[in-house]
């Protein structure tokens, strides 16, 4: 007879374990229904063609799924708009993530330098993050107005010709990037600021004794000791940026920008699923998006882990 581990025989053990699972149950239920089930079902859907309702014999079957193998995926990679969506999403992520973090780092540094009215600035920079994206996008639609917009007006002082931000295929994606850098830079700088304030003052004192300049101290002490926060912000914004959708949808009045120039992957998924009723294809596209984000996150984890310094 197999021997059971000793603690299995303890009543207390089962009581504690049962209790723990009971506490976990509500969260597991919510996550299960709204996260895990849809997540796994998306994989299943991506191999099917879906009919909202289909008559089979004399029976009406809602949500009829027909197995089509890899058809949805091959169709996707033959769709130039999907390829364009991947390309543009990558450009968006590649530009907006580093720019936002760079600016946030600079901003946080200034905020950390005993600035007067710090609470005010902190609030001011945090405002865009807590404002609904719909409201932001509608306001920016006006800021970007090529004839009467604020941005072109300001650029006019520097002799820049009117830029048709929202209707020129060259400027549509940059317009989305600028808006979102503005939107997230405050949030990220607050996180980085918190990190900076947690760095022990003794390092700076020691640096001062050794005659390091302010910039040297920043480069050699602040930034390295801030890597956990930078890494966190990096991952979060990378994942978030890949999922960009609402900004595009509202900024371009329910279109993916002129000549699809602001078509992103999630916009594509939305369009396939909810405008065109291709649920299988939409699911396949979301599986591809998942694969990209997953691979990038794994890559980041392994590469950056070596460069992240934890103080303790």
């Amino acid at each position, binding site marked *: 007879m197999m021997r059971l581990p000793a603690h299995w025989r303890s009543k207390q053990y089962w009581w504690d374990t049962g209790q723990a699972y009971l506490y976990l149950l509500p969260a597991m239920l919510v996550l299960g229904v709204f996260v895990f089930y849809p997540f796994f079902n998306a994989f299943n859907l991506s191999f099917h063609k879906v009919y909202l309702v289909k008559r089979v014999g004399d029976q009406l079957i809602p949500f009829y799924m027909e197995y089509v193998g890899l058809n949805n995926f091959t169709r996707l990679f033959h769709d130039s708009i999907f390829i364009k969506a991947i390309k543009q999403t990558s450009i968006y992520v590649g530009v907006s993530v580093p720019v936002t973090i760079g600016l946030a780092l600079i901003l946080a540094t200034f905020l950390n330098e005993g600035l007067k009215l710090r609470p005010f600035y902190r609030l001011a920079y945090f405002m865009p993050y807590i404002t609904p994206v719909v409201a932001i996008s509608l306001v920016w639609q006006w800021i970007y107005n090529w004839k009467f917009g604020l941005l072109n007006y300001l650029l006019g002082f520097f002799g820049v010709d009117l830029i048709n931000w929202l209707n020129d295929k060259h400027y549509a994606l940059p317009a989305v990037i600028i808006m979102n850098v503005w939107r997230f830079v405050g949030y990220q700088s607050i996180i980085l600021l918190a990190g900076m304030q947690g760095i022990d003052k003794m390092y700076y004192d020691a640096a001062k004794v050794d005659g390091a300049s302010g910039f040297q101290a920043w480069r050699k002490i602040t930034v390295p000791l801030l890597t956990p926060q930078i890494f966190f912000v990096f991952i979060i914004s990378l994942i978030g940026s890949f999922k960009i959708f609402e900004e595009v949808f509202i900024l371009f009045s329910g279109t993916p920008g002129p000549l699809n120039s602001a078509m992103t992957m999630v916009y594509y998924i939305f*369009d396939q699923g909810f405008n065109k009723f291709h649920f299988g294809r939409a699911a396949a596209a979301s599986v591809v998006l998942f694969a990209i984000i997953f691979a990038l996150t794994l890559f980041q984890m392994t590469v950056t882990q070596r460069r992240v310094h934890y103080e303790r």
Partner: protein
Amino acid sequence: MLRRYGFIMVMAVAVFGALAWAEVTIDFWHAMSKRHGPVLETLVQEFMEENPGITVNLVYQGGYGSLSQKLIGAVAAGEPPTIAQQYENWTTQWLDALVPLEDYLAPEVLADLHPRFREMNMFNGQLLTVPFNKSIIVLYYRPDLVPEPPTTWEEFLQMACALTVDEDGDGVPERYGTGLRPPNPEIFLTFLAQNEGSILSEDWSEVTINDERGLETMEFMADLAKCALVQGGYLSDPFGQGLIAMFVDTSAGYPYNLAAAQQGGFQMRVAKVPCHKNCSSMVQGTNLGVFSMNQTPEQIEAAVKLVEFLLRPENTVYWAKETGYLPVTVSGFESDEWQDFIAENPERAAMTEQFLEGGFGQLHHPAYWDIRSVIITYYEQVLLGESDPQTALDNLAAEIEALISE
């Protein structure tokens, strides 16, 4: 003893009475917001007063986008509402779940549906929906700049270019003759129909959009684009800002365009779209469909009753007058009430005339939304000068070909 029997009698009458009043409840999903919602509520209230046994649950589902998503969810779950507003390209996704209305509606009601609308609501030879909030594409113009609206393509083009002014000569006009919105290919489809062209042949077996008629139309659009503000956003904004003198848009946009004109401090008028070989114009807006899926016969009967109620001449006219949409029945159009109304409201007269003369609807092909989407892609390329009409149409035809053979 007698008293006891009396009590039982009273009870029996009460029970039978309640049965005769058998409560039927139906859900009616719609997307009519605060501008039109109250009008619909008034009509439904009146219907319920007339039919005390029927309770209609009017459910506002948000905009058309949310209505579509909620209907998708409901149909997929096998539990749609009894009656709902829907666009043709949604209807084609759940044809089997709808009641064929010809079997249910009274013959005089069927005969009264305007024939143009009737045709637009036929799917595979069956009447599956009835027109509800219907609008049509018309021409909006500023009388201070356009004393007489253009009536032909040639006049339209000529006037649009004459009205395009670039006084400071910086290459960016201060005002354009007209405006074109690529995400709104219904304008192109209107002109295509005016040139007797079509997307597909009658039997859907062949793509005809790149034939001679299609090419002529696309060339006209390319010419027009040279004197047009081409932008993705709604045209009411630049119109209000004085950037465009006239533009073609749906009649449902009337209140927005009028508000923009008032803000800009000028007058706005409505005319028919300039014509070519005919005066066709595309009809937009949703229809009402009654679901058979997961409904009791009583619910279906109640919904059909409601449809018949809404189609009565006095009701379709009331609806049209209050909302700005079109009446949908012959008797509605011909009623004295409507005739008197349009005599006093020239813009509504123009919309009515436009519909009666050339209203046509969406293609009912199940892949229509994909087709429309590729039309937008190439239409936009032509309007922005990225592609010439011939190349664009040939590429477009190839893509449509692939879509319909899928």
